[in-house]
């Protein structure tokens, strides 16, 4: 018997949810054959069977989330060259016993480990260290709250840090509520708020919450905006888009053009394509651009790797492919890792100023806001109707200062404003 464990499907992933079992108990499985589909914070993945044999038992039901390393199934290894089933008893004991034993065994075997499996997780979770107990007491954490905490220790043990993180998270909404209550104190006195509905947290929701909180708590964000005249780009796209669609089979959007401009900007200001560390600012060799894609219950940021080696059409195809796969839940781990800078496109929803939160450990994120026609004073003090767009940059002020950020935005703006048909599309 070999146990199949919840695999670690990427760095910083600590748990996974069983989406669908592709095999049922009793099924024959080949080595590397798809066994189960797992949903993690970041991606969905098919977990292959680690060895050939018969799936004896499924230990974790579909829809259940377990920590990495938890046993999820048991496979009985196939023994080569044994045609007849092994006789479990010595011949001395007689035919009857020998026949009864194999019949009874398959029934009794699954029931015992099933009991163990159920007990194992909760027990290691509830074995709390003195430090954890003291913190629970100090912060008056209820049993219900405790059962909602994901243990990061061995076998899902809840560590002191897990409790401290939970307390920090819990404190945030509480303070906000406190302020709210103060502001609306007279109204609240007369009518108690009607309890609302609680939407359970999906792994993605939780991951977004953790990352955003970490970002805002650790990165001193600074924010700056540049106004870009997109008229040339808009005209160019208008002209080129039909041909592009015909040739490439996908729409030519503004995103790959902006990403291209961002790549050029990062080449000119490499300190923005970097990460903060206590040892120093790490300048990244590759320019890997994350592109935010909204999906059903949240947001995912797949990464265009080595974006600096791609043409606009190459970027368009890569982004289109990533976005489609993101919405279909078909991204792989490498698709969401290694980003060095992010581009976000809230402008499609008509926003004009967006303050994005940086995705750690990156040093910046650029939001494209809506392209709108506005009267603008142009050369010769004339007023003209131009297509204007705001580019909003959030940057890690530990890594760089306003001068570099502004230089980057200026580079992006100049590149976009200088856009002409001479810029190669393919």
């Amino acid at each position, binding site marked *: 018997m070999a146990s199949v464990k919840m695999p670690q499907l990427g760095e910083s992933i600590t748990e996974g949810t069983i989406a669908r079992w592709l095999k049922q108990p009793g099924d024959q499985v080949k080595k590397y054959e798809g066994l189960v589909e797992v949903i993690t914070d970041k991606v969905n993945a098919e977990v292959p069977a680690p060895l050939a044999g018969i799936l004896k038992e499924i230990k974790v039901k579909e829809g259940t989330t377990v920590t990495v390393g938890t046993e999820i199934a048991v496979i009985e290894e196939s023994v080569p060259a044994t045609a007849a089933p092994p006789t479990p008893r010595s011949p001395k004991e007689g035919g009857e016993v020998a026949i009864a034993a194999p019949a009874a065994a398959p029934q009794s075997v699954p029931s015992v480990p099933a009991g163990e499996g159920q007990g194992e997780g909760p027990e290691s979770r509830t074995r709390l260290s*003195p430090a954890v*107990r003291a913190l629970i007491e100090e912060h008056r954490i209820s049993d219900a709250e405790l059962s909602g905490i994901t243990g990061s220790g061995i076998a899902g043990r809840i560590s*002191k840090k897990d409790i401290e993180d939970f307390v920090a998270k819990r404190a945030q909404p509480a303070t906000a509520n406190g302020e709210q209550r103060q502001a609306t104190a007279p109204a609240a006195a007369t009518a108690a708020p009607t309890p609302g509905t609680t939407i359970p947290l999906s792994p993605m929701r939780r991951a977004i919450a953790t990352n955003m909180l970490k970002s805002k708590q650790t990165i001193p964000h600074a924010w700056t905006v540049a106004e870009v005249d997109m008229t040339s780009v808009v005209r160019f796209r208008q002209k080129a888009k039909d041909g592009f669609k015909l040739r490439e089979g996908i729409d030519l959007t503004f995103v790959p053009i902006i990403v291209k401009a961002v790549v050029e900007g990062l080449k000119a200001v490499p300190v923005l394509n970097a990460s903060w560390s206590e040892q120093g600012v790490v300048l990244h060799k590759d320019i890997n651009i994350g592109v935010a894609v909204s999906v059903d219950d949240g947001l995912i940021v797949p990464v265009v790797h080595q974006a600096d080696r791609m043409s606009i059409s190459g970027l368009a195809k890569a982004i289109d492919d990533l976005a489609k796969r993101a919405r279909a839940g078909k991204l792989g781990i490498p698709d969401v890792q290694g980003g060095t800078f992010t581009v976000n496109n809230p402008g499609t929803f008509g926003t004009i100023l967006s303050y994005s939160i940086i995705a750690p450990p990156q040093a910046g994120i650029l939001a494209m806001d809506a392209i709108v026609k506005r009267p603008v004073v142009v050369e010769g003090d004339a007023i003209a109707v131009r297509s204007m767009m705001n580019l909003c940059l959030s940057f890690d002020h530990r890594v760089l200062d306003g001068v570099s950020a502004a230089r980057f935005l200026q580079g992006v703006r100049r590149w976009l404003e200088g856009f002409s048909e001479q810029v190669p599309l393919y």
Partner: protein
Amino acid sequence: MAVKTVIEAIREGMDEEMARDESVFLIGEDVGNRGGVFLASDGLYKKYGELRVIDSPLAESCIVGVAIGAAVNGMRPIAEIQFADFIAPAMNQIIEEAARFSYRTAGDFNLPMVIRAPWGGGVHGALYHSQSIEATFSHIPGLKVVAPGTPADAKGLLKAAIRDPDPVLYLEHKRTYRLVKGEVPDGDRVVPIGKADLKRVGTDLSLIAYGLMLTYCLEAAEKLAADGVSAEVLDLRTIKPIDQAAIVATARKTGKVLVVHEDNRFAGIAAEVMAIIMENAFDALDAPVMRLTGPDVPAMPFNHVLEDAFMPNVEKILAKAKELAAY
């Protein structure tokens, strides 16, 4: 401030104390003209003469016995045991006489003497030149035991030991002699006996060590930082009297403690540190207190591979610390 090695710091410490106080003298095998086998007393014979830098017979019982007699008579002897491994013939003088003298005479006499002993492995010294003796002597009431790990502490603690009114066993790790370099403050700086030193501040776990293992723990902590684990490193410096407050403080702070020494495991210093933590910081612990030590085998082996297997090193500390961090 200048950067010095541990051996230079020890030599300087003896030199300064001998210049400051005429009652201070050195006795040991080859300490005179030869300047000591590790050159700890290099130049002192020439400077202070044969009456203050005395070449002894090859008899440790004699070295310590002479020192006891001199100390009773108001001198401040430094007795050098060439290798800590050779200290056994002087056990009777150290335990039965030196450690108990003040108690036996109801405080009428005390013995202001220092026994210097180069200890520890990792130098390919095998059975007779590698052992750790701190646990053996720390068990004896009446003795103070110090084991500095840096040049500054080596000099400062040597001064404190020489000026101390009671017998002090001063352990100098051979491997650190020329390996560990560091800033040594100028002037007459005394490091008090009984005070541990937080050599690195961290939040996730605590490494507690002394002697050579301090250097290894600091290296491991640096590597842990790269993995996102913030390790605190507490240097005991003095083994007895042990700094309970500092041990308890770091244990309470991080809740996760790993004690490291190269001495044998059974009834070693780690066991004592762990007991202190259990008695005083149990309610703050987030993981079982762990230890990484030399194994319970008769002696440090000569075979290079086996010596490596015996000695805790940076990789072993790192692996154990990661286990602790993940708990």
